[in-house]
């Protein structure tokens, strides 16, 4: 059974399937490849992801803004429910398809130099599998398959975060990521079950498509009514809560965000992929897929949580010293922007920001990777006891690694959202729409746009701090160890090409020919709703200008603090500093409350198991042992004893008679004589 809703275009579907399946093929090939061919594994995966990207681009060109392409086939039937497997290509999925492959390509290339050849086999198996899971996640058309690939994305990220599994911290980190994601998975699963109970289908098009079942369902008099059935209203909120939990876990939103900073234990190239396109984008993508099911209250929840997460993560990033950790918190912050944008009906801007963020965050991570790589070399060479990721050890690197410096600068400018970068287009779009959204609503709604505005300022500060500490001033290691012989450089072309490519993608021309207006961006126009009004409000002018000015001022402040060494920031004993440095104590809270409670519970259960269950078993065991001991005694002493007595008797008699058979002739003669004498004596006596 094949059904296509708009137009049948089988080559496109074939290309899409090939683009999805090829990374799986690469994973299988790399799995079977002998280990000494590690170098080859890298090039196989890179070549295949290039092919995938080309195919994805073709699919993108054919489907983008040409309606949707939906093809499915009967997978299996349970009762009256037919579950279909198929692919759904619409603007959202082809956009993600292209984004994932295009981001994965430089990461693959970069990794050929970043990962040691002997580890590349395993690495590329995981990496290709990761790409496959994510690509499949974005094109499938049913909730069942979505869930399956959702799990696979979590699983393959688990493998990659714990790639250096001999390090204890990596094992802890991937366990943490996995458990956090499992919490989200439970949410998604329960949401799927509720949606199925209500609508009797898993099909994404039937559920969430235009005029789909979700669109037609209403909430009346406390009941959630759809054409297929009805149930109490509360279940709609439970379903939302499930979806939200899933999104919060995958896209690292408060309160499930703590796994993402720890996931830095994986190779930096993996971090780049996770933070840019594959892992965390899945949550935003899921929101995009099921967007039509949310009502106003639920959207408000998304807006509030997104906004809070953005602010929280930005403040934490202010004081962190680990290069990758700063970037990780900035990712959480930017994801907060996206979730919030979903909540304020800025669907198009949210996805636009997802795309731009993917490029510049991937770029920043790859830059961080190069820097850490070089510092690590210095550490290895001179046997220093330093943390290669600590930004307090860096400084003045701009002259030694110019390409990395420029690339990082572009990435940071995009992250702050300064003009001429892609980040400016997407981020200011979100800010403007946030202000427009709050317009005409009660005053407390203003909290969201204002706090997100403040967050932008905070972002500018920590980004400036990062740049100044790493690239300007004196090289701190040189100050600490004066006799170092340094040769730090940009690294090989496998490092440079991805950086250059991603830097170009982080500038405005890729997205819009007009560097100042997000509404001219083609990506934005591909997602914006039909009834979108080109805003002519005052915010379109005020926000970008004020945010740029503010960002520059803050950057200048940071310059004064970190380069001119003026004391303009909070001291380290300040309460706010501590709050930020310790990541708002969220990790500590989880550790001390939730983990401890779980451990306590499991200890109690362990005790119960040990004492009560095992105790019962032990009593039974003792009883059985006693009974069998009794039986053994009876067997041994009564039954065997009787038999032994008989054998003893027979043996005694036998031995007695055997004694006569001494084998000596003279004894025989003697006995004969004795017998004859005895006969005679008896004869005399009688």
């Amino acid at each position, binding site marked *: 059974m094949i059904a296509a809703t708009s137009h049948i275009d089988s080559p496109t579907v074939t290309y899409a399937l090939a683009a999805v399946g090829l990374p799986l093929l690469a994973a299988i090939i790399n799995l079977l490849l002998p280990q000494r061919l590690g170098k080859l594994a890298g090039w196989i995966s890179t070549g295949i992801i290039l092919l995938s990207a080309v195919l994805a681009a073709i699919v993108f060109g054919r489907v983008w803004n040409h309606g949707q392409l939906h093809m499915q086939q009967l997978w299996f039937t349970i009762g009256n429910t037919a579950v279909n497997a198929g692919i759904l290509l619409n603007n959202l999925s082809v956009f993600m398809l292209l984004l994932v492959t295009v981001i994965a390509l430089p990461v693959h290339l970069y990794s050929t130099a970043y990962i040691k050849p002997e580890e590349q086999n395993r690495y590329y198996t995981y990496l290709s599998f990761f790409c496959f899971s994510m690509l499949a996640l974005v094109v499938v058309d049913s909730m069942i398959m979505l869930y399956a690939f959702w799990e696979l994305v979590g699983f393959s990220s688990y493998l990659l975060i714990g790639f250096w599994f001999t390090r204890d911290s990596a094992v802890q980190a991937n366990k943490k990521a996995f458990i956090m994601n499992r919490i989200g998975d439970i949410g998604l699963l329960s949401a799927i079950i509720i949606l199925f109970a209500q609508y009797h289908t898993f099909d994404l098009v039937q559920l969430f498509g235009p005029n789909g079942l979700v669109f037609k369902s209403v909430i009346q008099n406390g009941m959630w009514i759809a054409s297929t059935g009805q149930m109490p209203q509360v279940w709609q909120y439970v379903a939302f809560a499930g979806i939200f939990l899933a999104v919060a876990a995958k896209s690292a939103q408060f309160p499930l965000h703590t796994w993402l900073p720890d996931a830095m234990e994986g190779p930096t190239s993996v971090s780049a992929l996770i933070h840019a396109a594959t892992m965390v984008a899945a949550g935003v993508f899921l929101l995009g897929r099921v967007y039509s099911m949310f009502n106003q209250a639920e959207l408000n929840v998304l807006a509030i949580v997104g906004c809070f997460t953005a602010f929280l993560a930005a403040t934490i990033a202010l004081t962190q010293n680990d290069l990758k950790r700063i970037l990780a918190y900035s990712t959480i912050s930017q994801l907060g922007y996206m979730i919030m944008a979903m909540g304020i009906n800025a669907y198009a801007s949210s996805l636009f920001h997802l795309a731009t963020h993917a490029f510049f965050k991937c770029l920043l991570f790859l830059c961080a990777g190069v820097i850490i790589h070089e510092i690590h070399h210095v550490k290895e060479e001179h046997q220093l006891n330093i943390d290669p990721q600590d930004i307090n050890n860096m400084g003045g690197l701009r002259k030694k690694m110019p390409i990395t410096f420029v690339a990082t600068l572009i990435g940071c400018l995009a992250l702050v959202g300064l003009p001429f970068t892609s980040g400016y287009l997407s981020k200011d779009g979100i800010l403007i729409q946030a202000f427009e959204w709050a317009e005409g609503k009660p005053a407390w709604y203003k909290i969201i746009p204002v706090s997100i505005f403040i967050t932008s300022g905070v972002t500018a500060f920590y980004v400036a701090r990062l740049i100044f500490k790493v690239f300007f001033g004196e090289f701190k290691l040189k100050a600490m160890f004066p006799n170092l012989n340094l040769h730090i450089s940009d690294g090989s072309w496998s490092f440079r090409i991805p950086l250059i490519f991603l830097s170009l993608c982080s500038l405005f021309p890729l997205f819009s020919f007009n560097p100042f207006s997000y509404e001219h961006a083609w990506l934005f126009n591909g997602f914006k709703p039909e009834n979108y009004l080109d805003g002519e409000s005052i915010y379109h002018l005020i926000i970008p200008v004020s945010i740029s000015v503010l960002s520059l001022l803050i950057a200048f402040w940071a310059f004064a603090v970190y380069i001119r060494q003026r004391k303009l920031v909070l001291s380290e004993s300040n309460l706010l500093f501590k709050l930020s440095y310790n990541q708002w104590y969220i990790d500590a809270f989880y550790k001390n409350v939730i983990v401890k409670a779980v451990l306590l519970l499991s200890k109690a259960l362990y005790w119960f198991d040990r004492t009560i269950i095992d105790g019962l078993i032990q009593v039974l065991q003792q009883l059985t042992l006693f009974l069998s001991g009794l039986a053994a005694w009876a067997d041994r002493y009564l039954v065997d004893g009787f038999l032994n007595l008989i054998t003893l008797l027979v043996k005694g008699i036998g031995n007695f008679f055997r004694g006569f058979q*001494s084998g000596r002739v003279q004894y025989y003669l003697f006995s004969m004589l004795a017998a004859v004498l005895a006969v005679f004596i008896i004869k005399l006596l009688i």
Partner: protein
Amino acid sequence: MITLTHYLLVSAALFSIGIYVVLSKQNAIQVLIGIEMMLNAAILNLVAFGKFDKINNAGQTFALFAIVLAAASTAVALAIILNVYRRHQTIDPGKINQLKD
């Protein structure tokens, strides 16, 4: 004068000595000598009782046959002893106990 009783006493003594020798000696040849003593005690009896037989000299003649047969059996016994010696490197009948089970 010498009566039958004297013959019988000598014969009984000879037989008893023979039995003692047979039972106590640790050399097969000596045992064989003991056997011959007992045999000769029997022959002595035969000759002594032959005086009271109706036919003359029948006892002596029979004794001669018995002596010849004894010599033959002694030859066989010596041959056996020789073989026993070859086999066991001893002719002490106390040490040759392979007759037992």
